[in-house]
């Protein structure tokens, strides 16, 4: 014990060790203020809120397993002869990248497991982001103040696609090399600069000796670095905005109802990380992914049938497969529209969903914060747009796998290609119309439920012989939940003449906005929700309506 006699230091000496460490840290980092705001932070509960967690955890798992893989992987395209333990490849010429991937798979104990966890986690990461994004979209969680976080998430999805693509290209196997060749062909189609970009990217002609090393630094450093930053920013904003919640008793736009971070969410979310990791490890134990030893090393003059990218690249594959081979030759130049148009549509498909929140907020003109989630049925136009987008995405996925559809379902590949060409334009429109009708139908059902109660399934026979179905009234909790959503009124174009009687110029954008607003919130866009008067009139017992 020291000889200091100030009362303060004596009391500190008695404090438990953990508290003393926390005091030390607080004096330097200010952790108590941080903990005061966050330790008992409330998170609402809903199964769909776990989707984002799955993405976060698989991202962490990818980083952990990826770092391990870099310890054994040689990002080099030097040609070597294989003399490792995988007998069928003995004496084959291959790049060092491919050879080291074989070594990871056959000679490093647990190497194959980590490789497969890495790849499975990447697939789950991308699928998780896709579904998480759809959850956010269909519940309107992207509305103010969360538009920027929506964009962060969107960027993560796009960067994740390219990180995945550069990742599965690294082993330099026959399949991934074919994907790189496809990418090179797509780059060559870019007018004016395409050839130059290709030569700079590959250090000369395809395939050259450089791309594995270059993709390696893009895959392990550049893209994951940006993504890590975006993930952190994404989480900070989730904390800062506080999580959204569905409407329900006691849940308002001004509060957040749920369980505290410490201990419930610490345990649940922390535990969920282990659940995700555990499932991925078990999947990697029983399900082979990307068996590069069965595919063989890359040779530009060889290919196998059924060549497919990983699923998240499939829609771009669909674009390139179904596009007619248009080429325009003029003045000694070639405009390769058959490849360049798909290359342009590829980002447009993604951007369409990314900019949607801004279009919707422009149509509604709503500047308020929204923390209560929408039920998809209550915003039919948005829901219909989302379903149309997903439909387009899946039509293109069918196009990307047209050979597999043909062989698995014994269909003509030409017929499938033509189906996709037509469905690319028609299917989203049909999906839009059908979804909107379904949403309106569900809104009518909700209205019915509120006004007339729940169908109990009990059939009663009246004394005079008539059969009726008994409806059970809803509780106030249910009534509130079903009527909590707001309904916008369509925006009107202001008067055509100003107060002086002079004709005002109505701009085209203003007209467009009014038209869109009518589509969203006009008679065909939503069913007016039941009013208190309607409810009272029906339940008052006189019920003549």
């Amino acid at each position: 014990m020291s000889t200091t006699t100030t009362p303060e230091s004596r009391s500190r000496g008695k404090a438990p060790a953990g508290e003393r460490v926390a005091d030390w840290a607080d004096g330097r980092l200010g952790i108590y203020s941080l903990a005061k705001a966050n330790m008992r932070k409330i998170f609402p509960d809903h199964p769909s809120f776990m989707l984002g967690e799955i993405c976060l955890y698989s991202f962490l798992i990818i980083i952990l397993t990826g770092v391990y893989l870099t310890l054994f992987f040689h990002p080099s395209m030097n040609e070597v002869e294989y003399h490792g333990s995988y007998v069928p490849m003995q004496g084959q010429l291959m790049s060092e990248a491919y050879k080291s991937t074989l070594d990871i798979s056959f000679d490093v104990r647990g190497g194959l497991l980590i490789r497969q966890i890495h790849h499975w986690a990447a697939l789950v990461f991308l699928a998780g982001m896709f579904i998480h994004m759809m959850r956010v979209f269909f519940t309107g969680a992207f509305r103010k103040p969360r538009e920027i976080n929506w964009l962060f998430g969107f960027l993560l999805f796009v960067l994740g696609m390219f990180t995945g693509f550069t990742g599965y290209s690294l082993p330099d196997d026959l399949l991934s090399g074919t994907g790189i060749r496809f990418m090179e062909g797509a780059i060559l189609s870019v007018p004016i600069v395409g050839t130059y970009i290709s030569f700079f990217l590959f250090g000369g002609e395809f395939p050259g000796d450089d791309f594995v090393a270059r993709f390696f630094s893009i895959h392990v450093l550049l893209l994951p670095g940006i993504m890590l930053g975006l993930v952190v920013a994404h989480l900070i904003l989730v904390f800062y905005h506080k999580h959204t919640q569905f409407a329900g008793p006691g849940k308002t736009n001004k509060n957040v109802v749920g369980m505290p971070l410490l201990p419930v969410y610490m345990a649940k979310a922390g535990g969920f990380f282990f659940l995700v990791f555990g499932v991925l490890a078990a999947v990697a134990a029983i399900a082979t992914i990307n068996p590069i030893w069965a595919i063989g090393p890359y040779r530009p003059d060889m290919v196998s049938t059924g060549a497919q990218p990983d699923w998240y690249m499939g829609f771009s594959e669909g674009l390139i497969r179904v596009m007619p081979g248009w080429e325009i030759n003029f003045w000694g130049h070639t405009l390769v529209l058959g490849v360049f148009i798909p290359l342009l549509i590829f980002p447009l498909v993604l951007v369409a969903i990314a900019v949607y929140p801004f279009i919707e907020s422009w149509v509604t003109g709503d500047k308020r914060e929204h923390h209560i989630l929408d039920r998809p049925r209550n915003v039919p136009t948005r829901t219909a747009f989302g379903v149309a987008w997903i439909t387009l995405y899946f039509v293109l996925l069918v196009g990307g796998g047209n050979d597999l559809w043909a062989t698995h379902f014994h269909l003509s590949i030409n017929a499938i290609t033509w189906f996709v060409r037509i469905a690319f334009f028609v299917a989203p429109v049909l999906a839009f119309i059908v979804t909107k009708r379904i949403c309106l139908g569900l809104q009518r059902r909700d209205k019915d439920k509120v006004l007339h109660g729940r169908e109990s399934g009990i059939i009663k026979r009246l004394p005079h012989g008539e059969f009726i179905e008994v409806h059970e009234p809803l509780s106030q909790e249910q009534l509130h939940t079903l009527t909590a959503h707001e309904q916008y009124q369509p925006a009107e174009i202001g008067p055509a003449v100003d107060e002086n009687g002079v004709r005002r110029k109505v701009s085209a954008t203003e007209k467009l906005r009014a038209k869109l607003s009518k589509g969203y919130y006009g008679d065909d866009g939503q069913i007016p929700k039941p009013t208190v008067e309607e409810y009272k009139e029906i339940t008052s017992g006189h019920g003549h309506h």
Partner: protein
Amino acid sequence: MSSHDIPEENLPDAQDTPHGTVKLADERNPFADPGLPPHEHRIQDIDERAAKRSERTVALLFTLSMLATVGFIASYVTIPVDKSVYIFPLGHIGALNFALGMTLGVALFAIGAGAVHWARTLMSDQELTDERHPVEASPETKAQVMDDFRQGAKESALGRRKLIRNTMFGALALFPLSGVVLLRDLGPLPGTKLRHTLWSKGKLLVNMNTNEPMRPSDIIVGSLTFAKPEGLEEHDHEFQTQIAKAALMLVRIKPDDIKDKRQLEWSHEGIVAYSKICTHVGCPISLYEQQTHHALCPCHQSTFDLSDGARVIFGPAGHALPQLRIGVNDEGYLEALGDFDEPVGPAFWERG
């Protein structure tokens, strides 16, 4: 039957109304928010025996995880890396990968399951409420910030001293150019590299499989043969880059079946040589239908009619496959009579 005989509530008109009485917290507004429902106790909250059971379950899961980790280490040490094992229904699989993956999976999953079970059964499930505060700052804060900013801007004199401002913008705009310039040496300029392949007059066609020159009699009707130019060996440093352009496919078609006049001229006894690299995005074409003479690219299904100048009959390719003019030399071996007369592979801006 008249309506006097039955109670009014049973009349059809009244049937639409919900039966029974609704308990409303707010009689004036039945849709009003009734507030958080009362907390319902779980069995663990009221029965200590159930709570003990939950505790044991959680502890069991954590113990299982410890055992699985021990199993992981034991598997790593004892199972040889090349041992394979039969496991129903997976078939013969690598024993080590399976053992490590399953033990690791159980070790992790059990920790997760334990933590979640703990949270769900033993930690408080009382719902709590946090207030939200608007993100936007108050007008006072905003005014203060704007004042501070104006003050700072004024003190910097950025608006007044235009010379400083303009030269600074110039400097900041120019310096990133250094970074762009540095990228120049990523690769050589394209030049005419995409227009030329290793083929030239007199180069023998070497069979890709046997590595031997070929005589016309080696190519039979209905077969698809792949060839490379003589002198190009797999061990060559440039092999990959050269074969990416020079890969050739040979088929023999009855001369009468060849519809294209130039194609017939450039062939030898019905043997035609086309670039194997698809003109779409460069996949090697490797499927051949001998009855129809169609060649199909397995990547994107572009289909070429090899009996009609290899024109595109289906799929996304934009132009026909380039043909290599071939003949036989004095010793009777197939040889090229020059390079392709157009660039092989995918189209590009300078192709023309």
